[in-house]
């Protein structure tokens, strides 16, 4: 009979190969579609595109509103991340370091934006905006993203806050440190990775967010996901959609690798020094 570890390795290898193919093939096809040379169509019965070039990337960059959409997406996300952290940190502090009646309920309520269907939130948030006569697409979507993704930031930050070592806090106080001194000595090292992780997660989610941007942004405020949706729906043009899909996904994958590292260093064992 085959030994268990050996069986494990074989199974794992098979599964890893499948999953890698499962990821590599679709992306390879997307890349290929994005490089179909405009002017030389890829049509049946050609198995492979007859000509490849980066021409389409240039055209998309120069004539489509991809540039504007990227500007919108990448100017929303960093601000949303910042605001979500600033507004969410006090709540995270209360969740992570204080005990109070109703804390459990408060923590569950904080998850409401995650549980409500995204399109319901988007449509009726839009309805409220109209009644208020609020016209700025940018600020409306920004507020929406802050609220929708704050739960993630609060969750990560409250773990970080709970890992601040009380002994260090007390020691700093005993040594007569100012509140800022205490913060720098005891809090900052413990919450720093969590802060970055929280910021990044809001950033990534904001870049990807579709429902709010689609409902509130129409007809003219585009973000990268809404422009991708337009190339997938009404104006279905596979090669253009491929370009936008890659533009949307690649930066996020890079950010995710950073995030993964941060989350690892946000691990209690590393931060509190308790091992």
């Amino acid at each position, binding site marked *: 009979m085959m030994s268990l570890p050996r069986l494990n390795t074989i199974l794992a290898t098979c599964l890893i190969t499948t999953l890698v193919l499962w990821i590599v093939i679709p992306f390879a096809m997307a890349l290929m579609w994005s490089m179909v040379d405009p002017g030389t169509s890829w049509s049946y019965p050609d198995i492979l595109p007859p000509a490849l070039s980066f021409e389409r990337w240039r055209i998309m960059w120069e004539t489509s509103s991809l540039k504007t959409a990227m500007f919108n997406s990448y100017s929303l996300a960093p601000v949303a991340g910042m605001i979500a952290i600033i*507004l969410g940190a006090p709540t995270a502090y209360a969740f992570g370091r204080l005990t109070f009646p109703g804390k459990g309920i408060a923590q569950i309520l904080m998850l409401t934006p995650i549980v409500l*269907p995204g399109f319901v939130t988007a449509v009726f*948030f839009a309805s409220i905006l109209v*009644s208020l006569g609020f016209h700025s697409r940018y600020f409306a979507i920004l507020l929406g993203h802050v609220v929708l993704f704050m739960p993630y930031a609060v969750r990560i930050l409250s773990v970080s806050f709970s890992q601040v070592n009380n002994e260090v806090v007390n020691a700093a106080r005993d040594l007569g440190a100012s509140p800022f001194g205490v913060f720098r000595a005891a809090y900052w090292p413990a919450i720093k990775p969590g802060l970055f992780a929280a910021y990044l997660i809001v950033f990534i989610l904001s870049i990807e967010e579709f429902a709010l941007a689609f409902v509130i942004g129409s007809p003219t405020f585009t973000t990268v996901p809404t422009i991708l949706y337009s190339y997938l729906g009404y104006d279905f043009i596979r090669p253009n959609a491929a370009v936008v899909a890659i533009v949307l996904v690649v930066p996020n994958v890079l950010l995710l690798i950073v995030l993964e590292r941060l989350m690892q260093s946000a691990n209690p064992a590393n931060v509190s020094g308790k091992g």
Partner: protein
Amino acid sequence: MPNGLRIILLLTPGLGLVMTLMIWVLYRAFAQSFGLYNFNGDDLLTLSHWQGMFQNRRYWNALEWSGYIAVVSATLAVAVAYPLVIWLRRPFKGSFLLSALIKAPYFVPGLVAAFLLINVISYHGFVNEFLIWIGVWDQPVRMQNDKNGYAIIGLQVWKQLPLAFLLLSGAVAAIPDNVLHAAQDLGAGTWDRFRKVVLPMTVTAMQASLILIFIGAAGDFTFQAVAGPTRENSLATLMVTYQGASYSDWNGAAVIGVTLMVLSLLGSIVFAALVQIVAKLMERV
């Protein structure tokens, strides 16, 4: 400063803001479904928007469709995640890479995933050409926008599996080794250990996974719009259709939105209860 006040001040900018907006949104949806905030006429508290929808075939079709997709997706995702979690409980060579690969889809935006899938399964796409090449099929099969929604279910499972995986592996990791060992020493087989130890201790995580995936899949718009059958609507796509330019029926959209929330709530309760019952039964058998 009194402690209570301090806590309220701390919670206000975060939880306070979130709750204000969410309650406002919820209230708006309910109010509009009963005729208030009518943008096309007078505000009038009425059941007529509900009655109108109840007589609309598309409404019932969408409700049925969203329910079907959500139930199947949630069940499948958890059913696939469970064995993986148990298998990967103890690290072995390659297990880290494997769990990273399983988690990866959570961070691929849904629109991109749907686009990649329809590329691969299109009529002369990779899958069709490959299966014809190895001789499984004689001619291409139409898989795009299939009428049973397999593409959407596949996408949902693919996208939501990581969530179930994370929640369940957290719960499984929390089972103390000595408990499992003790069960083993008492002569419990793999199956017995699963139903007497693992299952009861992961019930909460399983409920949470099922509920979150159910809610996510019931509210799906993108997968339905991109890869779903053209003859069906999900509640979300129907809601957007009603609210959109060609109908501009916000009150009708509100009825659909509230229905979607009720479906999510009911689905959650049913799933939570079922898991509880099944776990109890398994323990006894």
